[in-house]
């Protein structure tokens, strides 16, 4: 049975004559999304996937970046279509994450239409064998009441 006590106040253990000191780090954050805020707000409130475009070279970035790393000018917001092609897929059988606990789950790379780089996202195939690199996929969003403004709010499925 798990011991839920704060380890910092649990007595030391002695193992093979050596002391083992239970300890814990716990840090909560309040992260400023700053210039990237619109991405999270549009995702949570309107189920829109936003990217940015460099007005100089035309590169479209999603995940968005507020400046172009090549041109060093500020980018402008654009809405992504949510359509793209699968570039990688993996089936996770043992989760080592406390964010995704249910296994198996599927993650992969998707190259969104028009975007310069692929992104890593959640996938929801019926079967892993249904996924093939290069296949067209599109984003589906969780219902409004389930969205939290993280990229877990959407997942990609193969086009019909």
């Amino acid at each position, binding site marked *: 049975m798990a011991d839920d006590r704060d380890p910092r106040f649990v007595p030391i253990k002695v193992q093979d004559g*050596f002391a083992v000191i239970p300890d814990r780090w716990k840090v909560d954050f309040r992260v400023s999304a700053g210039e990237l805020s619109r991405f999270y707000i549009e995702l949570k409130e309107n189920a829109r996937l936003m990217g940015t475009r460099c007005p100089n070279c035309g590169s479209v970035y999603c995940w968005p970046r507020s400046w172009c790393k090549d041109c060093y000018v500020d980018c402008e917001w654009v809405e992504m279509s949510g359509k793209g092609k699968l570039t990688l897929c993996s089936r*996770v059988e043992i989760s080592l*994450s406390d964010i995704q606990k249910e296994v198996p789950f599927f993650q992969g790379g998707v190259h969104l239409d028009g975007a310069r780089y692929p992104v*890593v996202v959640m996938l929801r195939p019926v079967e892993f064998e249904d996924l093939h*690199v290069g296949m067209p996929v599109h984003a589906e969003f969780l219902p409004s009441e389930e969205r939290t403004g993280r*990229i877990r709010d959407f997942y990609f499925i193969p086009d019909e």
Partner: protein
Amino acid sequence: MNDRVAVMGVGNTPFKARHIDKTFPRLAYESVKAALEDAGATKEDIGSTVYAIYNDFFEHCAMPDLHIHYQLGLARKPGSRITCGGATGGYAVRAAVAEVASGMHDVVMVVGVEKVGDVANVFDMVKSITYAADPFFEASLGASPAGSYGGAILWHMENYGTTEEDMARVVVKNKGNARNNPDAQSPMEVTVEDVLGSPLIIYPLKILDHCLNSEGAATIILASEKAVGRFSSDPVWITGVGASTESGRQAERDDAGKSLFPAVRASALEAYEMAGVADPGSAIQVAEVYDSFSGVEICLYEEFGLCGWGEGVQFLTDGRADMGGSNPVNPSGGLIGGEHAIGATGVYQVVEIVRQIRGEAGARQVPHVTRGLAQSMGGARGAYSVSIVVEG
């Protein structure tokens, strides 16, 4: 490099899953003491120290280097810390080489240490690594390091027909090599079938395809050419250092042709150019490389130019990477059989190549080594990489 840089001393602790009898400063101290004795030096000879310690969580301390440095009796002398994921050790060696080559210090020590097992369980250990993900987007997926490497391996399978059996052969080789390394954590006689039958984590990677999590320390002592005479050991030279980076996001890569690990490729080419290596297949007589996962090692043969693109499996099955092959890879056992005390790894790789060149590698000695390669990488799919050419 302005000045030539010699390795005058090497030392390490044994590597284990758990050193319950030692703290991380003690592990560091033991490797430092061994390296000083190896060089015929004392701590008073050390002008500056670079610490290779990857992750604050493993030492449960955000400035672990400070708490080692003072206890080594090195207060009032410069000490700094490098942290670059799995390439922490390689980047620390590079920083120390720069301190010597620039003429800033004649004698610089690199101390790599990690105490991975002090994290209470493997889930929290991996969680602490996932905190390296892009904090604004991908971190919220809870993706693990295995996923980032898995994508590259899947590409290799789809494009070159590499199989899970091929990858399992890397595990058989590296855990087998570890049997000749008394400091290795996981010497094992395993079969391809054992590997294929071990539990799947992320397709196609199984538990035995994974690198180890280790505790331990490694130290090297570098000296300028004019300071070499202060030591009792024979110099071994660092003749090439290459370092590179990529996006810290898993899938974000600019086109790199057939290179699956562009930062590795770039770091190798830079190191080769500095060392004057034109034909790696004949020049690199032994290599200690970052086999974070079995299939990665197959990709690395190609990235290092030990064979052509898509020829990694052939290179392996021909036995060229085996002990007794043309280019033995990971005679220490690598990260799969030897150790992966993360910050220490890139330092220990140099320790091993130095021992191979000196002819001090015991049962795992590769005959007549005059030149070897050490390479470490870290971050999502090798986003940091350092390649180091070492010569006798």
